[in-house]
């Protein structure tokens, strides 16, 4: 019996589970947080370089104007915006503001949509 229980399978395939919108906002908060932590050293380095001289600033500017890099930057803008908005949402809910189910659903949608829009605008500006 014991051996069998230890070998018991578990169903936990996240791709086969339908997540409510709040969970999606929350997963996005995690992912964006990781992205921000990973990108911070690079961004700091870029800032440091760009302040060095006009020539280095120009090099960096050309670097980020390539289309695929604009997409990358838009991703970071998304990460920053989503992390901020979802973070504020979590903080408010922690003190009991908007923690009812329907309000929480609305604010989750709002954070997701707003961050996506900001990222799209950023991408459009860089590509233009």
């Amino acid at each position, binding site marked *: 019996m014991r051996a*069998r*229980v230890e*070998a*018991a*399978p*578990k*169903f*936990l395939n996240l791709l*086969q*589970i*339908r*997540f*409510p919108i*709040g*969970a999606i906002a*929350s997963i996005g908060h995690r992912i964006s947080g990781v992205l921000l932590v990973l990108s911070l050293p690079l961004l700091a380095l870029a800032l440091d370089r760009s302040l060095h001289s006009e020539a280095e600033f120009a090099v960096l500017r050309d670097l980020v104007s390539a289309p695929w890099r604009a997409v990358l930057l838009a991703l970071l803008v998304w990460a920053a915006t989503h992390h901020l908005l979802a973070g504020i949402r*979590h903080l408010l*809910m*922690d003190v*009991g503001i908007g*923690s*009812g*189910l329907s309000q*929480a659903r609305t604010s989750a949608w709002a954070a997701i949509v707003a961050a996506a829009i900001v990222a799209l605008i950023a991408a459009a500006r860089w590509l233009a």
Partner: protein
Amino acid sequence: MRLSIYRFNPETDLKPRMQDYELAPEAGDKKLLDALMRLKTIDDSLSFRRSCREGVCGSDAMNINGRNGLACLTPLVGLKEPVVLRPLPGFPVIRDLIVDMTQFFAHYHSIKPYLINDTVPPERERLQSPAEREKLNGLYECILCACCSSFCPSFWWNPDKFIGPAGLLQAYRFISDSRDTATAERLAYLDDVYRLFRCRTIMNCTEVCPKGLSPSHAIERIRQALVRESS
């Protein structure tokens, strides 16, 4: 109707598999549980729990098209086909849709789900005012089906340490009870990074509770009570 059901027999299978079924529901078949019972007359090896067939016993919780719910409260009308049925996520599978709830109930017992009051009982009963009784609404109705805990990401990652939404809702049910005198001890037990504070307010629990309860709200109230306690 078409169904796709998770099958696992520990005696013959090394791995779970999905099995497809075709079924013609009959006139009286209104809920998913009715369809499952009919299926059982065709394939009696299919295993699932059920008893009350009306949302009271909490035994037929399962993952229905990706969301946890009770088969007996899920109308057949409006279900997307094939209806995909899997056991509750994150729980060890005993067979087919039957999961091992040992740990779930261990968490439930850990919060001492009974009235604690060492004062001498009155002649007849411990009375409550209507307002005090009102506080138990939305808490006492829990049927311990585990839909919530098994849909909680925090519970998936720490099933042994996090009490989970169902246990915490019950903990709050006794914290709110005016007749219970162990509030301080109950709160002290919960004041722990894992037991209570693994909850990240994702609210999956409240999304799926078939009784319309809100474990996330109970958890919020416990946190508030802890803050009050310490200030």
